[in-house]
């Protein structure tokens, strides 16, 4: 399960997201699906739950969704924007 880090401040510009890692001072811009994934992290969630929603909204195969969203989540974690809560995902 994943959730946003308390170190990540963010704001929205229309459908886009701008996030700031408070401690590191690094800023990030997110658009399209990236911004959608960030929005889904409002509450702790799993990769499975996110892909359940994304495959319903976009024309994407399940395995591709899990692979690409998994890569994105891994990037978020590496950048300190998202924390992994447990090993259940």
């Amino acid at each position, binding site marked *: 399960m994943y959730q946003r880090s308390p170190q990540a401040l963010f704001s929205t510009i229309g459908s886009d997201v*701008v996030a700031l890692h408070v401690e590191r*001072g690094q800023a*990030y*811009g997110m658009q399209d699906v*990236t911004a959608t994934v960030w929005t889904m992290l409002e509450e702790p969630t799993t990769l499975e739950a996110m892909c359940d929603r994304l495959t319903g909204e976009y024309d994407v195969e399940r395995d591709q969704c899990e692979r690409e969203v998994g890569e994105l989540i891994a990037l978020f974690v590496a950048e300190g924007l998202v924390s992994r809560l447990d090993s259940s995902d």
Partner: protein
Amino acid sequence: MSIETPRPSRVLPTESNDFANEATLLCVSCGLCCDGTLHSSGNLKPGEVEKIRAEGMTIVDGDPMRFALPCPKLKDRRCSIFDRRPSVCGKYSCKLRNDLVDGLVPLDDAMERVREAFALIDKASRRAGGRASTSDIRAAALGAPDAEAAERLSAIVLELFLDRHFRISDEYQMFVSSVVDPKADSKE
């Protein structure tokens, strides 16, 4: 941090009957290119430096020589020295104006983007206690040590919005894209 004179009220005209064309209406509703929001200075030709200095504008040394923004000759979003203004002012056209002229953005949408910019500027200024100048906001966006995180975020949001909708090219934009997106092309 210096306290600048209060900004004029951001009241947008709603009628276009009195204006020559939509681009003119957009420009006199905006003024962000002149008030220091989009840019911190404007280029001068060698032969016009002394003339512009004589107008009371601050000259910035460099190659090319420049005049400092915000421009003191901007009055109610209009140029008070229109027939004596720097040559660059007559040639400059922001991305939003270009998109309007090219038919890519209708006037209503362009005006809405100006309103959005005003709202983001007000938010960024309020974050800094309502006394932030355009240079202060820009410094906060770039990580000034005395800028709090929330203040910096508001400033970044503003500058990204300006990059996307107003600033013409990478040369003038505040931020090089560094989007966290596995599919995004990386900029070298």
